[in-house]
């Protein structure tokens, strides 16, 4: 349910983003088109009145031309009254033309101010220039006509006037033609802009589509990665949970074993006290028994204390230089004396080198491994070997037995805490802390410890300890057994 909601949310989010992007794109396109088009339309709107103005100039100029023809005719017929009226009419038309030209120039200047485009600005400037030309030729034309008023039969002047008229007409036609061209250009420009805007919108839509697809791909990729991560974490959590459950089980087992180990000596201690008090047994015998049992309790307390030290990295080593074979032989000697099973303990030792170790702790490891070997061997041989590897600066110890071996279930985690063969069916019960302690002690010496089953039966425990300086390796004294 949860997964479905999350996925729906993601898809919804993605669709929302795509719609938003498309909306933004279209709005941007519309805005761009309208902005550009408005500008062009505004400019083209400036061309239309200019066209009208120039057409008006053309019209007024043709009127003025007709008026001049009338003036000449009235002069030839000596109609002085009409002549004077027509002259006045000519001059009034001239003022109108001046005013229209001025209006046109104003529009051209507004056009120049209005546009951001350099080309359009130049176009308006040309138009302004053309209007100025018309103005200039028109003024020249009027001056010639005024001169003519004083000598109306001056043929040369009349020819000049006709030439100027033609110049004005040419200039007006040229201006009108330019205006037509500019209007067409602006229309084309609007179309061009609209087309460009459309292409832009299509491009943006394609880009947005591509972005959306890429987003979709990445989201699906992220989703898949997340799923993998969640699966992995779930698996890790399950494994951790399983490990915790296993640890809890082993802890319960340990508590059972420890409480048994703690309670077990109490029964015979009470018994010894009771029997000694009633005089049923000798007091010395009772004290010896109590002492032995008290030592057992102390050992158990020490093991628990050592485990706590190892776990909190507080195991302190008292390093001393000792001949290693001496230590081994001393330990095996005491074991041989107390052996109650048909077992032979053999030593196969390399050079009796001097090593710097905490001999109490290393002795503890040996005793522990030997005790285990004896515990799991009914009869046979236990062999202790050492090998000095001078090149690798280490010494290796092997304790092999011909006993039951280690079950495959226990072997991979034999050095973990609380791993025991259990109480219920086996003779060889324990606290499950001995080998954990051995590993802690060897690792505190920067060494390594391992266990394996022998092909021919029984188990072998092996550990190495580094030899710090080659100089420490000496020829053995007479104690070596090899």
């Amino acid at each position: 349910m949860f997964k479905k909601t999350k996925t729906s949310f993601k898809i919804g989010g993605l669709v929302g983003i795509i719609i938003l992007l498309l909306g933004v794109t279209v709005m941007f396109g519309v805005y761009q088109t309208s902005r550009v088009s408005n500008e062009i339309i505004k400019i083209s709107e400036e061309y239309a009145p200019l066209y009208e103005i120039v057409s008006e100039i053309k019209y007024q100029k043709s009127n003025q031309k007709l008026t001049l023809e009338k003036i000449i005719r009235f002069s030839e017929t000596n109609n002085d009254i009409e002549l004077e009226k027509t002259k006045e009419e000519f001059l009034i038309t001239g003022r109108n033309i001046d005013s229209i030209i001025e209006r046109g120039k104003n529009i051209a200047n507004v056009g120049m101010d209005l546009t951001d485009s350099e080309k359009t600005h130049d176009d308006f400037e040309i138009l302004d220039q053309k209007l100025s030309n018309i103005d200039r030729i028109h003024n020249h034309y009027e001056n010639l006509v005024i001169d003519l008023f004083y000598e109306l039969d001056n043929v040369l002047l009349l020819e000049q006037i006709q030439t100027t008229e033609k110049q004005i007409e040419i200039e007006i036609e040229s201006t009108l033609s330019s205006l037509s061209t500019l209007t067409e250009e602006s229309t084309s420009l609007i179309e061009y802009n609209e087309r460009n805007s459309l292409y832009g919108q299509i491009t943006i839509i394609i880009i947005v589509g591509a972005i959306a697809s890429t987003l979709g791909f990445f989201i699906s990729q992220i989703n898949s990665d997340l799923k993998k991560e969640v699966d992995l974490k779930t698996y890790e959590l399950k494994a951790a949970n399983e490990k915790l459950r296993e640890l809890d089980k082993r802890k319960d087992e340990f508590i059972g074993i420890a409480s048994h180990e703690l309670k077990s000596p109490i029964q015979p201690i009470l018994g010894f006290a009771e029997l000694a008090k009633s005089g049923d047994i000798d007091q010395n015998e009772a004290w010896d028994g109590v002492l032995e049992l008290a030592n057992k309790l102390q050992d158990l307390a020490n093991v628990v204390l050592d485990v706590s030290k190892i776990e909190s990295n507080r195991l302190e080593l008292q390093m001393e230089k000792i001949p290693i074979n001496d230590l081994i032989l001393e330990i095996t000697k005491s074991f041989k004396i107390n052996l109650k099973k048909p077992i032979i303990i053999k030593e196969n030792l390399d050079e009796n080198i001097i090593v710097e170790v905490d001999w109490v702790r290393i002795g503890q490891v040996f005793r522990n491994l030997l005790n285990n070997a004896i515990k799991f061997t009914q009869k046979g041989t236990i062999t202790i070997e050492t090998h000095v590897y001078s090149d690798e600066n280490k010494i290796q110890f092997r304790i092999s037995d011909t006993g039951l071996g280690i079950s495959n279930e226990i072997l991979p985690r034999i050095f973990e805490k609380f791993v025991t063969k259990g109480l219920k069916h086996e003779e060889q019960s324990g606290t499950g802390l001995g080998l954990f302690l051995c590993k802690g002690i060897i690792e505190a010496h920067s060494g390594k410890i391992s266990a394996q089953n022998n092909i021919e039966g029984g188990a072998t425990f092996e550990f190495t300890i580094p030899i710090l300086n080659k100089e420490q390796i000496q020829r053995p004294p007479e104690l070596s057994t090899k």
Partner: protein
Amino acid sequence: MEIIVAGVLSLNVLVAEDNLFTIQQYKHILEKKGCKVTIAHDGEECIQKFDEAFLLLDPTSVESGPFDVVLIDNNMPKKNGVEVVKEILKRSPKQRIIFASAYNIGSILNASEVVMNEVEILQKPFSLNAMIAKIQTKK
């Protein structure tokens, strides 16, 4: 409930216990009380000793078993107390058994299908006198 006055008990007792000191003490006090004591150091040996005596039984006494009392410690090598109790009760359903353990006996028995009524319980640690009193006091 019958209380036997302290004195000579003359009972045939099978003791199953792995602690050597405790064995010595049980043996000492029981023999002092006139009991015949058979010792087993682990669960398997206990069944073996029981079977040896069982084979010599008069057919009329098969149900009540070859021993007057079997004192069994729960925590023993090879076979634990509960398993031994089950085996013994299979052969002789009315064999008197005293089950001794440092563990919580109730939970052990509940978890192992042994009806608590079938065995008597002695919670460790106990005094030897308490043990004698328990043996003397028959259900």
